[in-house]
């Protein structure tokens, strides 16, 4: 019988060990294409979970995730690129002084990327979170567009629309999955703490929450800043994975992909976001075949460019219209849940007989 907390803890540690073993095997034996998809899975999970914290758990509809990702990607890239590489990239307008000579290890650049992104999240969130619902959506969208336009124009910092090319590929499964696990763990614990209950109460009814003594401003900003932090790190990992970034990588299209993951997975369910995040990364690759020409038994079917996103858009509309809750609603999967589910159904069978 496993009734004690300790046993569940062991189960959880075992799960994480299995994942680590899987990463170890995968990183060594799988081919680069599969590893790339697995990396994308991890990154989508980070981005999805962080957006779900803002949109799903706190109920503040943000459309600014791409902006935070752009900040993360650029900050980290400017820090981990070698001075020689920077010189090659900035052949039109040279990079401004202190940045042009700095190079720091990847891990620190990730942390700084997250912190800068969180700082910007605070600057944006503090004034804007006074706005409700759709107004917040517009302001955050406006913010991500402003970031995009700024990055297109600040040539001596971001290299403008030329973007940064040939970034060193540091992202591997350890980074992407490790941070994904950390993000899920961190946000799950945040949700289950008193902070999390305050966030959910704001989502359900902000006036009632305030009447019960929840500091609305503090908690909204908190969730926004944490979301921005992980979005920045996710953006940094994505930048190092695809090895080339430009401001238009982080357009509204990017935010939209994350929104699909969060809504289809269920606003307010980490489990749903994780499942759909992984599925999304895999499906994006699998459905690539729809867009390339195929031949069945001598019959040539021309590829339809753009078909993938149309399929996702239709899927999203189906979920929004017919399954309001998404895949998981606000339920979560855990070992405890599984255990009680199994034992209870056994008991019921016994009682029935």
């Amino acid at each position, binding site marked *: 019988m496993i009734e004690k907390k300790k046993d569940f803890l062991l189960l959880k540690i075992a799960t994480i060990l299995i994942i680590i073993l899987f990463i170890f095997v995968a990183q060594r034996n799988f081919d680069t294409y599969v590893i790339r998809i697995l990396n994308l899975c991890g990154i989508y999970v980070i981005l999805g979970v962080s957006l779900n914290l803002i949109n799903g758990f706190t109920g503040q509809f943000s459309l600014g995730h791409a902006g935070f990702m752009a900040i993360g990607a650029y900050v980290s890239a400017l820090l981990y690129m070698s001075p020689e590489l920077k010189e090659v990239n900035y052949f039109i307008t040279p990079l401004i002084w202190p940045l042009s000579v700095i190079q720091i290890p990847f891990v620190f650049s990730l942390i700084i990327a997250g912190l800068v992104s969180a700082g910007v999240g605070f600057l944006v969130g503090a004034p*804007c979170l006074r706005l409700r619902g*759709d107004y917040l959506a517009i302001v955050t969208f*406006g913010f991500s567009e402003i970031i995009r336009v700024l990055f297109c*124009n600040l040539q001596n910092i971001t290299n403008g629309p030329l973007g940064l090319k040939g970034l060193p590929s540091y992202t591997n499964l350890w980074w992407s999955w490790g941070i994904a696990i950390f993000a899920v763990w961190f946000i799950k614990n945040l949700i289950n703490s008193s902070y999390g209950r305050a966030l959910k109460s704001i989502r359900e009814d902000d006036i009632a929450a305030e009447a019960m003594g929840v500091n609305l401003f503090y908690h909204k900003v908190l969730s926004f800043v944490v979301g921005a932090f992980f979005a920045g790190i996710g953006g940094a990992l994505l930048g190092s994975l695809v090895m080339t970034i430009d401001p238009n990588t982080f357009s509204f299209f990017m935010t939209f992909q994350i*929104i699909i993951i969060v809504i289809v997975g269920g606003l307010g369910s980490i489990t749903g976001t994780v499942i759909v995040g992984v599925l999304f990364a895999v499906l994006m690759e699998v459905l690539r075949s729809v867009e390339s020409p195929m031949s069945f038994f001598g019959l040539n079917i021309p590829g339809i460019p753009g078909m993938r*996103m*149309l399929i996702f858009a239709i899927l999203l*509309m189906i979920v929004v219209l017919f399954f*309001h809750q998404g895949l998981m609603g606000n339920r979560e999967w855990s070992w405890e849940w599984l255990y009680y589910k199994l034992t209870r159904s056994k008991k019921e069978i016994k009682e029935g007989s």
Partner: protein
Amino acid sequence: MSLNIFLQNLSNGISLGCLFALVAIGYTMVYGVLRLINFAHGDIFMMAAFFVFYAMTIFSLPWGIACLVAIILAMVLGRTIERVAYKPLRNAPRISSLCSAIGMSFLLENFAIVVFGGRPKSFYRPEFFAKTFVLGEVRVPGVNFVTPIVSIVFLLILSYIVYRTKTGLAMRAISKDFDTAMLMGINLDRTISFTFMIGSGLAAVGAILWALRYPQIWPFMGVFPGWRAFTAAIIGGIGSIRGAMVGGFLVGLLTIMIVAFLPELAGYKDAFIFVILIFVLLFKPEGLFGEE
């Protein structure tokens, strides 16, 4: 800057402003009755331009009739979107209809990429619109004469419908109080559909004028005019038709004048409009003509 160049910019600004006003009204009317940001509005705008294009190339209709057909089709499209994507969610939480609106916008854009192709297409311009007229020293393209006139005619028709007819009265009643309007025997579905049709029709007119100005159409052409018009609607006070007209006018004029007076900031012109939007929302969220 010489007076001539200023006048030239002024004519561009006025005609662009009228255009934004037409599109902004669609946003403001839908927000007024449903409290919903119709993200798909910019894409109805885009679809209307394609309707004109295909009516002329595939069905070889003359230009004028093609425009008429496109306006009617856009109205049908707007009504269909309302029926399919917004009506089932009318009693759901606000966030669901917001998701639905964003999803619908994305669906239309991707549909356009798959069906129409992502490559820009050139839009037919009758000779008058392409010609540039020289008045003294000021050079004014033909489209700058037509846009304000057409816009003002449509805005007058709209004002008549909203302020002088029974349907208009019903629309204003719904925007004041949804439930009471229903109790007073107003046919909610019909009025809301009508609102969407008017908004989409005006968007189609805007799209045609836009395409005459920038004769290239592509699936994402609606995104930026859409957002600018939406900004205009907010600056004017969302829900207020007069506000949308004034707001659209201001945004159009500002867009042109920023580039004209501060050419070194031209690259930032898209950001500038969003900065204005954010400041308006933070300091005067009800806009110029909106109610508290």
